């Protein structure tokens, strides 16, 4: 499970890509071009990318809205993400749903619904189906510290544990659920402690250290693949921005934010790569520049892409046509012959 230099650099590239795409989205948001809210993953890039990177082709992920890095690992293009945030016809959801709510099992990605926790039983079902279909398939999903309080989290993880399903749950402890701090969310000392309730292994890891995150996720993935059942991996990280762009996070202490800024996963990883001689600062800068150009082009293309045609609103409720047609003008009834 040792990573090659190429892989280590790919991790860097993905993390940078994650950050750059989001910075572009912030610009678009400020220009009023993002439709709806914008949810940042600043400071949490290593958590998403390190964990998803532990998967193999054929595995299936269920990311939440703060897991932009995950869909990038799964091969989504920046344009997929940007068109989606801009509600375009060409976006993965065709404008039907917002932000990172997009997915297809055939692309290895399941779209969440907003209701937190709901993905856990669904991912368990994916894993169950995979086993029935004799696929070598591991599933991975993410949940926030807040999301662990939901009944769905509990029911899903318990079911997966009983069935010994190949499911890895990354619990992202970023200190906050919207404005609610960890200690108002749970009296548990840490999220890893919640594993005992299901008789599965639980582990805490530094979620801002991409290599440590990768290693922990990899252990869990390997365990899942070899029939060892689910694992709960707690990633200790921090939400560097508000819940969404509109939230100035006034409830966060400045010093705490500053302390975590020092642990920025991308800068930290750049230092690691330079120190370990995997790359020079110049090489990393070149990667950054290439990504910047790529993403600029993707933004341009996204901006040119069309909005959906209105009638699409009525399509695809059911497999064979829908019933909910637009109102007809009255009278709709036939005239009675008198």
């Amino acid at each position, binding site marked *: 499970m040792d990573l090659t230099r190429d892989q280590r650099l790919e991790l860097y590239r993905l993390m940078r890509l994650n950050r750059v795409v989001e910075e572009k989205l912030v610009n678009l948001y400020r220009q009023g071009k993002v439709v709806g809210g914008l949810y940042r993953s600043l400071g949490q890039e290593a958590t998403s990318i390190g964990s998803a990177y532990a998967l193999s082709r054929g595995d299936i992920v269920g990311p939440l809205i703060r897991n932009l890095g995950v869909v990038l690992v799964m091969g989504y293009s920046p344009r997929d993400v940007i068109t989606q945030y801009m509600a375009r016809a060409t976006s993965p959801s065709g404008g*039907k749903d917002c932000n990172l709510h997009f997915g297809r099992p055939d692309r290895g990605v399941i779209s969440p619904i907003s209701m937190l926790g709901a993905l856990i039983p*669904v991912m368990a*079902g994916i894993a169950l189906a995979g086993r029935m279909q004799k696929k070598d398939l591991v599933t991975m999903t993410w949940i926030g510290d807040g999301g662990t309080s939901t009944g769905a989290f509990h*029911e899903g993880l318990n079911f997966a544990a*009983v069935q010994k399903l190949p499911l890895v749950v990354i619990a992202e402890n970023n200190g906050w659920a919207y404005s609610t701090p960890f200690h108002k969310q749970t009296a548990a000392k840490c999220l890893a402690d919640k594993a005992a309730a299901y008789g599965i292994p639980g582990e805490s890891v530094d979620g801002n250290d991409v290599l440590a995150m990768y290693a922990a996720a990899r252990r869990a993935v390997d365990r899942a693949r070899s029939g060892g059942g689910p694992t709960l991996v707690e990633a200790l990280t921090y939400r560097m921005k508000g819940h969404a762009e509109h939230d100035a996070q006034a409830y966060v202490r400045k010093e705490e934010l500053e302390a975590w800024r020092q642990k920025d996963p991308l800068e930290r990883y750049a230092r690691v790569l330079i120190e370990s001689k995997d790359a020079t600062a110049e090489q990393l800068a070149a990667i950054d520049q290439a990504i910047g150009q790529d993403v600029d082009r993707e933004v341009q293309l996204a901006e040119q892409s069309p909005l959906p045609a209105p009638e699409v609103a009525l399509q695809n409720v059911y*497999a064979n046509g829908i019933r909910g047609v637009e109102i007809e003008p009255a009278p709709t009834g036939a*005239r009675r012959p008198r």
Partner: protein
Amino acid sequence: MSGAPHLGGPDPGASATSAKGLTTYVDAIREGLREEMARDESVFLLGEDIGVYGGAFKVTDGLIQEFGEERVIDTPIAETAIVGAAVGAAMMGMRPVAEMQFIDFISCAFDMITNFAAKSRYRTGVGVPLVIRGPSGGGVHGGPFHSQNPEAYFAHTPGLKVVQPATAYDAKGLIKAAIRDDDPVLFFEHKFLYRRIKEELPSEDYIVPIGKAAVRREGRDLTVVTYGAMMWTALEAAKTLEAEGIDVEVVDLRTLFPLDETTVLESVSKTNKAILLHEATRTGGIGAEIAAVLSERCFEYLDGPLVRVTAPDTPVPYSPPLEEFFLPNSEKLCRAARALAAY
């Protein structure tokens, strides 16, 4: 069909099962499940106590022996996990059938059903061909939490289909159609019918198409639109009324969403009067939707008010005199029909 059940009457119990080629409602569901499981490897069952025990009402009895515990899964008590796992498996091309031990417990999976299952195809293009089934309805003194009729909640949720069979033939044909359907189908069984009705079923494979109502009795004077166990109540009342010279047509909806508006409209255009009969509580029930459809699309043909005969807006009480008072029955229906006929 071997005759209408009388709500409140004695339960013949398991002894009534499958005598001389007749199949009960409960056996019909089981046969439908079995045939689909044999036909299609992707069909599997999950729920509480459905395997080793064969289900609280024995709907799945024997299936674990036949298909193994991989395809008949006993789950923890966790309706959200049951439906959620079904959603995930369905996304992968499986055809899960999830049992709610009593349909009342569907409330515990409400989010998963109405938000994940119902909206998946629309918002992501991924359909979820799953079936959720379980015993609904009263008449057996089950009290507020073992007697509910929650179908209207789901008929109001775009993305779901909702069916409720009244006969053994339909029970088998609809469960098979539900399993083959590419969208989530809620299959409401009526527990009062499980062992009280039986009929001879075709030996060959058949389905009852989703979205098609059945005219159970033709009549000229008024139409009773109903479904589920109340279909038998309507037939019973029709007999009584026939003796009084009132000729009732009985439409059994079978599918509650999407509604077979054509059959309903044709019937009421002919009889010009309608009673909407259901066991579920009155306000916002399926009867309201039928009334809306009729008053929207059949207005000129109506020669009298649309009348609802339903349970009142209360929880389902437990004690026999209370439950009897609560449930619609032939007598209440006859009263309404006489007045409407005279209108």
